[in-house]
């Protein structure tokens, strides 16, 4: 007996055979039990496939809840990272003793003095370092945008992107012409007649450089002594660092005490307890330092910026001295080529000898210490008022143009994409508006652009609140949650987040970026617009 191919039976159960062929198959099935069993099996398969395809729809509802889960994952990850960092610091201390042990975790006073009075003042009131921080933040955001773009490209064209990424990495990675010499031991020493041709990385209790290193030196150690010559940079994390020789590059130091009696070809970047520049010491460019005490007896070619407990200046500074400090002492022998700008708590904390030479102007400002706003009930009242205003605005905006709220934050990719678009809008819009204003005919457009930009910055919180709220509040099955409720929930989360101590301003910036991005995505989707909120919104 000739059987039909399985493909024919597959078409038969799909009811896709033409009349005459269908009849022939039916006649064969009437005679062949094996083929009848096969056809029955194929029919069961079809039913299973149809049922499986029909059960997909709940995903739509499940997708809305992801952001809540994402938030939990983020918080747990942050905790995991914090714990991991804690273990990492312990590991570092084990491998490179002296790097952190002098900052005693048991000495809260020491921690307070080291971190809180310096680091947080730094974050709040230090314009010089703020430039660096903003640049760093800009780089971080640009990196996030590049990462987001790469991630999307990667999904579509993995091989070319992988090759490109590898090539880029190879270009920016360590110069292949320079090797790195690694040395470890209780005492790592480069003797007076020794020359290390490459850069040097050490691990041990103490490092002593009496000879010459033709590259840079990275030396986490309890004690580092440089009597010889380092052609590149010196990067140190430790307890005591003494430079009586020459470092032709920069000095990047985190330690308890840094004493410089020799020459530094470029700048010193220091964070620790005490930095002492002896009268014989010379720094050709800048000194940026933060810590407990700075003693400047030597010569600094350009600027000095100090954030810390006390500064004693008796040497020469080529340009400006900018300090934010508890106590400023400028001796008679001090010579400052440019301006002296100081922020102190009280006028008597700035003691400037009349005999000191200051080439530019002298400005002493008092640091105002206002009580924490968290203790003020009015702060909470105002936040509640701002929240109510944002809620009302959001409801009005949703009534007028609901499509602006369509963009979602259901995935990490969506968040990055919104942040990326928001960053571009944040930076590009005012630039474009100003350019438009430079052409006279474009002034109305430029002004309108700037107004819209300003309004969007304010409304950014509303868009983020709406997207967050929809993610954390589940609606009835098959429908989205009530917009007002979702917006209220989301705005509460946003207002709490942006008012968190210390990280609040940064999170507020992030909310602005994401909110701008969401608004633009929503507006883009409205360009040929439909609707009105569907039933239930």
């Amino acid at each position: 007996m000739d059987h039909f191919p399985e493909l024919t039976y597959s078409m038969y159960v799909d009811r896709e055979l033409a009349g005459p062929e269908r009849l022939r198959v039916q006649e064969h099935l009437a005679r062949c039990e094996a083929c009848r069993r096969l056809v029955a099996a194929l029919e069961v398969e079809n039913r299973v496939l149809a049922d499986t395809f029909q059960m997909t729809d709940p995903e739509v509802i499940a997708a809305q809840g992801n952001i809540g889960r994402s938030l939990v994952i983020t918080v747990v990850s942050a905790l995991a990272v914090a714990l991991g960092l804690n273990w990492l610091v312990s590991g570092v201390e084990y491998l490179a003793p002296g790097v952190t042990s002098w900052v005693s975790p048991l000495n809260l006073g020491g921690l307070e003095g080291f971190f809180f009075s310096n680091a947080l003042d730094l974050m709040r009131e230090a314009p010089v370092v703020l430039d660096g921080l903003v640049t760093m933040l800009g780089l971080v955001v640009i990196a996030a945008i590049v990462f987001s773009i790469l991630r999307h490209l990667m999904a579509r064209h993995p091989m070319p992107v992988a090759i490109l990424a590898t090539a880029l990495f190879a270009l920016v990675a360590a110069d292949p012409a320079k090797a790195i010499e690694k040395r470890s031991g209780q005492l790592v020493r480069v003797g007076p007649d020794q020359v290390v041709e490459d850069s040097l990385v050490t691990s041990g209790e103490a490092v002593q450089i009496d000879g010459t290193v033709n590259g840079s030196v990275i030396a986490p150690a309890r004690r580092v002594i440089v009597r010889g010559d380092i052609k590149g940079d010196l990067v140190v994390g430790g307890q005591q660092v003494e430079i009586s020789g020459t470092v032709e590059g920069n000095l990047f130091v985190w330690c308890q005490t840094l004493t410089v009696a020799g020459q530094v070809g470029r700048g010193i970047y220091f964070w620790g307890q005490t930095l002492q520049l002896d009268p014989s010491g010379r720094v050709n460019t800048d000194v940026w330092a933060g810590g407990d005490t700075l003693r400047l007896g030597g010569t600094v070619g350009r600027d000095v910026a100090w954030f810390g407990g006390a500064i004693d200046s008796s040497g020469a500074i080529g340009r400006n001295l900018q300090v934010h400090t508890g106590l400023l002492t400028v001796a008679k022998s001090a010579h400052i080529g440019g301006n002296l700008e100081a922020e102190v708590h009280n006028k008597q904390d700035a003691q400037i000898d009349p005999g000191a030479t200051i080439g530019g102007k002298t400005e002493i400002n008092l640091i105002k210490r206002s009580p924490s706003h968290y203790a003020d009930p009015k702060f909470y009242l105002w936040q509640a008022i701002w929240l109510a205003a944002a809620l009302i605005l959001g409801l009005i905006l949703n009534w007028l143009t609901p499509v602006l709220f369509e963009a979602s934050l259901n995935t990490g990719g969506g968040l990055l994409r919104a942040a990326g678009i928001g960053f571009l809008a944040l930076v590009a819009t005012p630039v474009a508006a100003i350019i438009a204003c430079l052409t006279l005919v474009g002034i109305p457009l430029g002004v309108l652009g700037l107004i819209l930009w300003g309004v969007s910055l304010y409304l950014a919180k509303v868009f983020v609140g709406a997207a967050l709220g929809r993610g954390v509040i589940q609606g009835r099955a098959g429908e989205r949650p009530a917009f007002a409720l979702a917006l209220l929930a989301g705005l509460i989360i946003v207002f709490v987040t942006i008012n968190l101590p210390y990280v609040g301003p940064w999170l507020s910036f992030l909310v602005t970026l994401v909110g701008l991005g969401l608004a633009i995505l929503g507006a883009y989707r409205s360009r040929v617009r439909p609707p009105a909120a569907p039933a239930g919104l």
Partner: protein
Amino acid sequence: MDEAHLQMVISRAMDDDAEALGELYGLFRARVFGLCRHLLGRQEDAEDATSEVFTRLPKSIKSYEASLPFPRWLLSVTSHYCVDRLRRRQLEQRLFEVEPAESLPLPVRETSPLQQVIDDEGRDKVKRAIAALPPQYRVPLTLRYYSDLSYDEIAEQLGLGRANVATLIFRAKQQLRRALSETT
């Protein structure tokens, strides 16, 4: 929603009634998303595609004819958009290899792993296996069993011959059986 009411909503939507368009969105969003999810394979893409279909609806609905049931028409529009998107995603324009509609002698086979599926957990496995199919098999299978399109309609949408559609669906089922046999 009864048929008469739906027809009224459709005809208001064709006159650019925003509320009617919103009602259609509420009624069919889940179904459209489900189809996009199956065809495109990624949730983010499915959300984008769903949004795009409804963004274009005010314009596209003007070409709707009542001879075809509206849900079928909407799913057809959706699958057209998704297939175009898949084509754009692939470097190779020919998303669907034109397979010869061969006739093989019958190895009589009586059981398939698909027949063993009796509960939701089993259907989850099948769903994952479908999602893992390459687009050239997944798309015609989805159009057949999700959108209920005939071979001729699928052929027209994908620009293929009827026999090729039959072969692709057949191969899709073979691959599903293999995948499910490996996991059980």
